[in-house]
């Protein structure tokens, strides 16, 4: 259900040499942005996939050091199908987390 976005809207907000990075993975591709929005200010459109194991450990340590955690809503395992429907409506602030103790 994840949908393509109009990348031109955002590309136009980048200054010279700015980079726009795609990290979401929609089921359908984004339409290609206008070439002029790239060449006129040497803007870059890039993608990035998760991170390596070493970097993931570095991120976890960084977050532990600076007390960064996610804002979550805890759910029991048998709520998962309802949680998916709510996710599709962006009805979660900001992540569901399953309590596996509920899986009996």
């Amino acid at each position: 259900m994840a949908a393509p976005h109009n990348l031109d809207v955002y590309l136009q907000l980048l200054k010279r040499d700015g980079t726009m990075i795609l990290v979401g993975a929609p089921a359908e591709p984004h339409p290609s942005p206008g070439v002029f929005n790239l060449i006129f200010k040497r803007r870059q459109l890039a993608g990035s996939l998760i991170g390596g194991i070493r970097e993931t450990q570095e991120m976890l340590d960084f977050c532990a050091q600076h007390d960064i955690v996610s804002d979550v809503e805890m759910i029991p395992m048998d709520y998962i199908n309802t949680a998916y429907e709510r996710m599709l409506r962006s009805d979660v602030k900001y992540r569901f987390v399953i309590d596996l103790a509920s899986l009996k």
Partner: protein
Amino acid sequence: MIKTKAYAAQSATSELAPFELHRRSPGAEDVQIEILYCGVCHSDLHTVRGEWHNTLYPSVPGHEIVGRVVAVGDKVRNFKPGDLAGVGCMVGSCGHCHSCDEGEEQYCDNGFTGTYNGPVFGGENTYGGYSQTIVVKESFVLHIKHAEKDLASVAPLLCAGITTYSPLRHWGAGPGKTVGIVGLGGLGHMAVKIALTPWALTSFYLPRLRRARSKTASGLVPMKFAFPPIPSKWRLMQTALISSSTRWPLRTIWMSISNCSSAMAR
């Protein structure tokens, strides 16, 4: 073999339901983890519903796993029973290509092994964190140093956290840069927290995007947004992360990172 309760989808159109699976007994380099919490990522939903057209069924998703080590193999040096541990999106890679050598296993030339839905280039299925136990090679297990009471809120760092941390680091988000986050969901809210720390937030701007009246024929694809005029100061955006995977990325934030003494760049 270790019998484990889980939740699985049997097809693209069936709901997730109770399922029983078997984990391998821990080998010399393996860590066995009792899963305590697992975050719910949009990729889980794409996968169980077959939306990327590559799903192996039954499908047990979940790649934001945190838990406690219950057993380790003979050659495991960095984990012991009782430790808090995490598992993210990968449980294996070839270990000898250029990317693996540089610690970028996610770009492994031979395809990393996803925590669920198997090796990306085919092969046997793997089962993720919607389950009670997982056995993972030590080199793909992470240490959790947060307080134990925060453990549930740490789980989403394993995907949403690293997915935003890595590009922010790679493209040098830090002092003097302005970062825009499009889509404030699971990924986006982590990007905000990570981009702003440890630097003081000096200013931010929240444009209110409005859905344009015209839609495409399907009514599903938003091709036009009514973007409000952005103050010129905020047109200096250096980096934008498009993290939204839901239909309307109406929540966005532009942040100016400054007022700091240390740099994020390595």
